[in-house]
């Protein structure tokens, strides 16, 4: 007997019972998947809360000194009525500077991938929080120095507390900048140039600094084996990925359903392009044991995407 018949016969003997079918129908109608989704979301939230708590403990260690100095600061601030308008103005100026920094960093972040955006945003927020408190404290210290010619015992205590607080905060900032835990969590390793990227990833393929009018601006390796270069021409961003593989695979990370899926032959290699109407957003191909993908944010005409792929082959 031929093997396929044997396989068919064996597979035919596997079937759902009537009871199982009825259960499936009933569960589908009840939409029981809601329960699973809720459980998954709850599990994710718990994990996030645990990680966040662990990071908070690492960045802001709770020491008894910190609590005692904080209470002195509060008392002193209440007692002292010498906080001038000048201080308020300088605080506002610093706040507006931090706002500008935030806007700039947010603009910069839009060029990064979603996962990295979250990572960067958290780090920036923490850094800002610490630096704002630090500069605030420095202002308080300056005010006390200038306005109090003969410092009282309370003022001395206040200044000591500010010094201690600043030390703690500076240590905090150092630990944020070091960020050993956050760095290990990201699967991406960033490099400064294409050449540096090439040295660190074992893929023998074209990785140009420029493709047509697109200039490269971000170079990274994900999970130690996938090279990723981002290019921009001012109006559109493209993501170029390469990864070694035994068989052809879609490494674009774009799992949207597109209306148009076409096969092209570019330099005798079959390329699959996907898009809607007459613009194409993703191109994938496999050549000499390497999987490639090219994704455009805005979408490209068939001729343009073909020209870009031509440059990469």
């Amino acid at each position, binding site marked *: 007997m031929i093997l*396929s018949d044997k*396989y068919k016969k*064996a597979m035919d003997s596997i*079937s759902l019972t009537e009871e199982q079918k009825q259960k*499936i129908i009933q569960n*589908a*109608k009840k939409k029981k998947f809601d329960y699973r989704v809720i459980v998954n979301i709850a599990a994710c939230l718990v994990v996030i809360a645990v990680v966040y708590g662990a990071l908070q403990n690492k960045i802001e260690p709770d020491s008894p000194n910190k609590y005692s100095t904080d209470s002195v600061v509060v008392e002193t601030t209440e007692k002292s009525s010498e906080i001038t308008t000048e201080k308020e103005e300088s605080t506002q100026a610093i706040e507006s500077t931090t706002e500008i920094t935030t806007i700039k960093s947010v603009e910069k972040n839009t060029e990064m991938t979603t996962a990295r955006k979250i990572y960067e945003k958290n780090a920036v927020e923490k850094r800002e929080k610490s630096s704002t408190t630090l500069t605030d404290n420095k202002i308080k210290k300056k005010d006390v120095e200038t306005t109090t010619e003969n410092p009282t015992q309370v003022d001395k205590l206040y200044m000591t507390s500010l010094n201690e607080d600043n030390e703690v905060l500076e240590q905090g900032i150092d630990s944020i900048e070091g960020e050993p835990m956050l760095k290990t969590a990201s699967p991406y390793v960033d490099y400064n140039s294409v050449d540096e990227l090439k040295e660190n990833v074992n893929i023998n393929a074209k990785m140009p600094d420029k493709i047509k009018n697109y200039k490269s601006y971000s170079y990274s390796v994900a999970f130690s084996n996938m090279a990723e270069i981002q290019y921009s021409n001012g109006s559109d961003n493209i993501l170029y990925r390469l990864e070694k593989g035994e068989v*052809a695979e879609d490494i674009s990370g774009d799992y949207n359903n597109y209306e148009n899926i076409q096969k092209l032959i570019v330099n005798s290699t079959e390329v699959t392009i996907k898009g809607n109407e007459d613009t194409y957003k993703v191109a994938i191909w496999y050549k000499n044991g390497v999987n490639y993908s090219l994704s455009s944010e805005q979408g490209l005409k068939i001729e343009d995407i073909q020209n870009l792929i031509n440059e990469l082959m």
Partner: protein
Amino acid sequence: MDKLTEVVNKYGNMVYRLAISYLKNTHDAQDIVQEVFIKYYNNEGKIQSEEHLKSWLLRVTINLCKNKLMLFWHKNVCSIDEIKEQAYSDSYEDNTVLEAVLALPVKYRVPIHLYYYENYKTPEIAKILGKGESTVRSLLSRGREKLKVVLKEEYDFE
């Protein structure tokens, strides 16, 4: 009889068999069947034709199986899976061929199932799996080669 009951009766076994060939585990396969038909129930209106429905169900099954295999805890319970797999195999007679196919790596197993059991042609399998035709041909060929070694050319593959 409503549409869902009709579809479950007609395609339930097809989905179940594909899930088994992917996951090699009856419990996980039953979960997948459940999820597939919940998805079908939520997207019932969007499916245009009978042929579209069949390939849609296969595509969804493969995607859900893939997700299941990628789950962290699924990757770390191999030994339990093997026990289940053994129990499952024991319940079928003369399962040499089935065992040999299920022992193949998943990338060969699924194209072989679709080709030899569902009687799909290479271009259709390529579409369902989202791979190139040449890739599917090469996976089928390599899969057959591996089966020949395991079955010691006891059977001819056609």
